[in-house]
């Protein structure tokens, strides 16, 4: 009998050793700060994780960041946002804007080629954009991105003719676009994937051209697709015929699809991946502190806001003072420091500071309990209530959302003496109940598609769509409308800022924090661009000799 106990003991012991080993602290590599050793390595291969299968690699149908991360390398629009965040010419060699800001004339780059050897022409752009706007092509969720073009919305939604869409290839080299209203960010938008050209003759002949890697997957960007194993791996290689091929140093980009964060982290630690984290993937929350300690964590702002929407139609959040009280009683710094941990900026405004710089300060003080209590009393009085009923706080199922909701529950309980009930739902169910207005306070987030405040302000222009708060304001709508007609940049910004002032005075939502890009990469990986819009560009990247 004694022997058996021994066996058991040994087993338990081994087990505990295995478990103990799991908790062991990782010693990451040091970040070397001298940038002298920038010689190119012989092997220009970059290994990254894009997490999941891109839902569509047809630029007209893509709507998500994973597809965007591939498309931005394989295709190129009229313009491209460069490393300094400036819009520069890409497929367009030059452009002219009319004085009223309504007509854009693009000259397509001479010698720009598709991967099958065809020249890239203005007709390809006209074809691609009209394809998106053709009501016969469903699944083009992002068609509305093109609605500033004259006649676009009418053609897609109101039975207008595609011939009336004001985009015209005057000849192979000249593309003329007329806009409905002067749009300050139109040039930047032409760098977005919905505006990418497609090879008209290939697409015409093969409706399924973008389904797989094949000779029909004809592209015009700095990289070509070499293989696409669905749900597994995409391999890109350098496009030797790209007009700016001299700039492109990377020969191969291997994009694997590993969904599990911890697996990706282990692969990174083992050197199987060169990049871990934003924008195509994320670092496991638990690993952030140790990377931070080793000083290998890179953090850059991401134009997006995480917020709690109030249902402004139902008591008690129909009262502005109550909304303000709840918003002020949140300790954002605490949430950012202890839960999300990626140096997100506490948000006391709607538009991220990467767009409106002064919003780093915000409209009110973070965690202002005194003011919150005063407002709460005032609000209760206005509503004729003696005390606050129990509040329901909804969020979709996720570890991070749950942790934040629990923290906020505690803050409201302690600060405002309000009982908060947490309510989580699976994503699809959650969007449904938010849309139906079946919530009091609900978590949401928004990431910008282009670097302009209108991205955030527009959501709340009218009820419905992405505005779950049921809040509308005539003055606010007026200001946005005015801003669309305003061609002067400073005056336009002023109008948008006024609109935000109204929004923050009414406060139909409690902003929590502005997102950040968080990643770590191997020292040898240089010059890869992560934009505040969560786009990644490998065009300028290279592998330095170690």
């Amino acid at each position, binding site marked *: 009998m004694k022997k058996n106990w021994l066996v058991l003991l040994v087993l338990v012991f081994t087990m505990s050793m295995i478990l103990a080993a799991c908790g062991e602290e990782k010693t990451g590599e040091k970040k070397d700060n001298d940038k002298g050793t920038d010689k190119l390595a012989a092997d220009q291969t970059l290994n990254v994780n894009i997490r999941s299968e891109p839902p569509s690699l047809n630029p007209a149908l893509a709507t998500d960041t994973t597809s965007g991360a591939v498309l931005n390398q394989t295709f190129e629009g009229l313009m491209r946002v460069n490393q300094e965040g400036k819009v520069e010419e890409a497929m367009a060699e030059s452009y002219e804007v009319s004085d009223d800001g309504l007509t854009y004339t693009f000259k397509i780059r001479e010698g720009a080629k598709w991967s099958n050897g065809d020249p890239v022409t203005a007709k390809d752009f006209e074809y691609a954009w009209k394809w998106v706007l053709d009501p016969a092509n469903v699944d083009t*969720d992002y068609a509305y991105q093109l609605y500033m073009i004259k006649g676009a919305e009418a053609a897609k939604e109101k039975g207008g003719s595609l011939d009336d869409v004001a985009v015209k290839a005057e000849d192979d080299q000249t593309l003329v676009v007329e806009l409905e209203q002067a749009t300050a960010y139109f040039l930047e938008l032409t760098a977005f994937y919905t505006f990418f050209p497609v090879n008209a003759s290939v697409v015409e002949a093969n409706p399924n051209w973008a389904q797989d890697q094949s000779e029909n997957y004809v592209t015009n960007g700095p990289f070509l697709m070499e293989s696409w194993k669905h749900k597994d791996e995409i391999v890109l290689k350098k496009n030797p015929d790209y007009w700016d091929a001299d700039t492109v140093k990377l020969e191969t980009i291997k994009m694997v699809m590993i969904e599990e964060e911890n697996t990706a982290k282990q692969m990174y630690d083992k050197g199987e991946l060169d990049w871990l984290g934003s924008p195509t993937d994320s670092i496991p929350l638990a690993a952030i502190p140790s990377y931070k300690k080793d000083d290998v964590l890179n953090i850059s702002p991401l134009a997006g806001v995480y917020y709690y929407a109030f249902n402004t139609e139902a008591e008690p959040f129909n009262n502005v003072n109550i909304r303000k009280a709840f918003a002020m009683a949140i300790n954002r710094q605490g949430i950012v420091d202890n839960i999300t941990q990626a140096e997100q900026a506490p948000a006391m405004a709607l538009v991220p500071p990467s767009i409106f710089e002064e919003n780093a300060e915000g409209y009110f003080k973070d965690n202002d309990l005194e003011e919150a209590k005063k407002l709460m009393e005032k609000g209760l009085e206005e509503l004729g209530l003696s005390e606050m009923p129990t509040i329901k706080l909804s969020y979709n199922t996720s570890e991070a959302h749950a942790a934040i909701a629990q923290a906020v529950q505690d803050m409201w309980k302690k600060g405002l003496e309000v009982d908060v009930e947490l309510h989580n739902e699976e994503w*699809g169910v959650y969007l449904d109940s938010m849309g139906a207005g079946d919530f009091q306070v609900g978590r949401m987030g928004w990431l910008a598609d282009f670097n302009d405040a209108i991205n955030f302000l527009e959501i709340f222009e009218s009820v419905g769509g992405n505005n779950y708060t049921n809040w509308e304001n005539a003055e606010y709508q007026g200001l946005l409308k005015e801003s669309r007609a305003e061609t002067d940049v400073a005056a336009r910004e002023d109008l948008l800022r006024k609109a935000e002032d109204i929004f923050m005075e009414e406060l139909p939502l409690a902003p929590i924090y502005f997102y950040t890009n968080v990643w770590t990469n191997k020292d040898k990986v240089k010059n890869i661009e992560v934009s505040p819009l969560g786009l990644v560009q490998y065009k300028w990247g290279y592998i330095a000799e170690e």
Partner: protein
Amino acid sequence: MARYLLKRIGYILVSLLFIITITFGLMKLAPGGPFTSERKTSPAIERQMQEAYGLNDPIHEQYFNYLISAAKFDFGPSFKYEGQEVTDIIKRSFPYSLLLGLEAIFIALAFGVLFGTIAAIRHNKASDYTVMVIAILGISVPSFVMATILQFIFSMKLSLLPIARFESFAHTILPAFALATTPLAFIARLMRSSMLEVLNADYIKTAKSKGLSERVVIYKHGLRNAILPVVSYLGPLVAGILTGSFIIEKIFGIPGLGREFVESVTNRDYTVIMGTTVFFSVLLLISILVVDLIYGWIDPRIKLANKGANS
């Protein structure tokens, strides 16, 4: 025998009809739809999509259309992955799950039966207890914990095997073992108890007193009878393992069917939900049938033709 088979296939078809109907109902009842997304598109565009995918048709029409296409094994394109046919998705992801599953079943069966038999023969001895402690651990440690521990030891610390992905035989070893642990432990326990029972039976005593060697008695006379409970456990196990495990596939980054199965529900990808469900059900029902046939072959006392309905 032919009549029995026909009858069983009839039952399979009826079960399938029930499964399809219930899944269809649940799917339509679940809030949200394939076009719900964080970024709402304009209502007009959404209407166009609903129309194009036939989601505006009356529900009974959708149901019958669905039944017809299921009968033809043509489920249409996925909603989420533009243009990819459901049959293509199943075709490309099933081989991964199949290979991994076969490997796991092989491991579970080989080691499970071996361990169970050893434990039974050395009843109440040290090796019996060791095997049973391992078995208890195997059953109680969830596969995803096992997967992470295996990854940690064999890939991170010892650098013997790759961490994840599915590119060579070496890549399959860890996920196959992680997948096999629970069934292995279960089979070992099943095998041990039924072997113990069999070893005490009269005919074994007869065989022994005839002077047959221990080995012949156990492997020829004992094993054949003792393995029956394991065989009946194999039916659902095979179907379950071959269609892939969501967690194992996710941890090891394997593009298998198990992930499609679960993710399609999250995405409300109606066509993929129905496709994978029908595929899984067919596999399950067929493997149960096969297990029943194997039963008759191992144990001639079980007369299939007479048994019929109550299987």
